[in-house]
């Protein structure tokens, strides 16, 4: 290899190390992470709308069941600032769960539970799409997350 080739190789390695370093920093310092292996929850077929799990005011947990061809619950409503623990399970085949415009992008895989957490600051309606092919009516499988002050009033 001549000098230029060696230089190119070093530049390429440095570039890739910088990229990878940025990913690691995002995951460790900013908590931008991917779903992991959940071993303390069994797959479920009973859904649960957002409910509180602690004394903290805006912490919720939701259990969503994906099945051919709907999400259960199809629509959930939370107040602005809500931090939701999403647990996702499939009752039949593989489905997707993508909350548009957010980092909640999950697979519902039969036999296992998928978990992710997100805080919803902006008020509005977020569509949730099944983005994994799950049979003939896959394109009709969608849901909604509504972030609204009215959710707060309903509780009181």
């Amino acid at each position, binding site marked *: *290899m*001549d000098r*230029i*080739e060696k230089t*190119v*190789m070093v530049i*390429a*390695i440095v570039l*890739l190390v910088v*990229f*990878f370093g940025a*990913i690691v920093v*995002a*995951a460790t310092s900013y908590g*931008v*992470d*991917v*779903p*992991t*292996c*959940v*071993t303390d929850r*069994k*797959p479920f077929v009973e859904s649960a709308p957002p409910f509180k799990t602690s004394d903290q005011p805006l912490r919720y947990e939701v259990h969503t069941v994906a*099945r*051919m*061809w709907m999400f259960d619950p199809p629509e959930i409503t939370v107040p602005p600032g809500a931090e939701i623990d999403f647990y*996702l399970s499939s009752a*039949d*085949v*593989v489905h*997707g769960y*993508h909350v*548009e*415009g957010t*980092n*909640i*992008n*999950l*697979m519902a*895989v*039969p*036999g*296992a*539970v*998928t*978990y992710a957490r997100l805080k919803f600051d902006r008020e509005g309606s977020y*569509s949730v*799409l*099944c*983005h*994994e*092919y*799950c*049979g*003939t009516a*896959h*394109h*009709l499988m*969608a849901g909604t997350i509504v972030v609204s002050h009215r959710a707060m009033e309903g509780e009181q």
Partner: protein
Amino acid sequence: MNAALKLPVEPWARRLVLLEIALPVVLLVLGIYAGLLQVLFRAGVIQAAEFWGWEYYQALTLHGIVNAIVFTTFFAVAFGNALVPYALGTKLPLRWAWVSGIMMIVGTLMAAWAILAGKASVLYTFYPPLMAHPFFYLGAALLIIGSWIAFFNWIPLYLRWRREHPGEKTPLAVVGMFATFIVWLIATVAVAVEVVVLLLPWSLGWTQEVNVPLARMLFWFFGHPLVYFWLLPAYTMYYTMLPRLGGGKLYSDKVARLVFMMFILFSIPVGAHHQFAEPAISSGSKLLHSFLTFAVALPSLLTAFTLAASLEYGARQRGARGLFDWIVKQPFFSTDGWMFSYLIAGLVIFIMGGISGIINASYSMNLLVHNTSWLPGHFHLTVAGPVLLAFLGMSLHLLATYTGKAIRLKRLAVAVPYLWLIGVFIFSWGMMRGGLHGEPRRTNLGMSYLNPDSPFYHPEWKLYVTVTMIGGIIMTLAMIAYFTVFFATALRSRTKEPAAEFPLSEAYHDEPVGALANLRPWVITAIVLIVIAYTPMVRDVLRGTFSNAPGYEPHNPAPVNQIEQLDTSP
């Protein structure tokens, strides 16, 4: 350019290679039609579940299986059957070559029947517990095992050559094809286990349930190296033929060999980067696979330099001056070295394919694009870029040389890759931009999200799906032009003696290669890396999976075994 060395080929070896080229090109006509349907369905031009008897997801299955699995596997085998004996100066042993070819053809016909009969609309990833007809799985297994036999048939040729040429470097073309099939062999073991052990007995009703996360892990053990199985025959052409077609020499023989060895090392332990969004795999495993995916980007970055340097050398020999003159002075539209256009257009497309691939591999950043239309936008810049164009160019070259028929409509043949480049760039822009705005992949958008009468209507995607459709139509026109050239050439009468003839390049820097001369240490290290990358993942999958799943047919939300019970009850 001097004429390339011509070697005679036995009639039955010729016929086999021609069959292995012609059958997939004929099937590709269906595959491209199915692709055109996709963009029309997705743009909302067709707002229905089916069009002329082809259901959307059935057509999508056919598009993926024919274009990405059948066409590519047949091509790699045919190309190796032609190139390996040629580069080693020997003949193809016929018996096992034909056994391999016939197995692949039978397997393809079985799977094609299942798909066309509407009994296997499970897409080319065939994720369980969606269940297909047993012929679909059996056909896939025969295709894969047939391709192994083709590879095993070349190994004695290579070993004999090594014995007869001690101390000589193995021809680079053989290194390229062996790297291709070593990656393929290791990777397909996993999918063969998935298909033969898990899915086939289950679809025959011998077993009731399947471990879905395990099946998915096995699929992606295969699914990403599959990408390099597509890419490496194209790389073989880039390294061994493109420099000569561009009027120059390969800048560095040693870097070429290093690149192929790095692909053997890093191609396989990367599967989890397709599974960032899934349960039953720990984030640690995902990060490790992300890291190894970055490692496999390195040989492609080196390739970008070496090929550019080779082309620059050629242009400077012809009098190019200054900083950029050499780029303009390439034989882009030469009809003599017409294959140059296929290879260079593919390389230009691959710049975008490679960059978007690094984004996909970037761990948490993947959540932004996972399963959106960004992904097919990306991989049409790889498999439908450098891979497709190199394979189309070489298929035409093999047709012409192995039948002894000069290519008809050569100017049209040279226009094909540039028309395709324009089409695929427009197509992928639409897909990728739409994906960043949440447009899903593999979804019949015309039935819901792109239908103004639907409660799910997303008018903000209209622009992206329309641009995608325009790109798709241009791609279809390019393929119609290609099929015209291919069949016009095939149907003319012979103009010269059939012979094997490949424009193999010389090396500019032809140094001794040391440890790169042997495949064995690289293969052993690759296996060690696979064990390191997959042992924790197997453990995750086993402890993160609580139950197995029964099978489902795509049109019925009740499990298959319950439907059967209902059928038999009074």
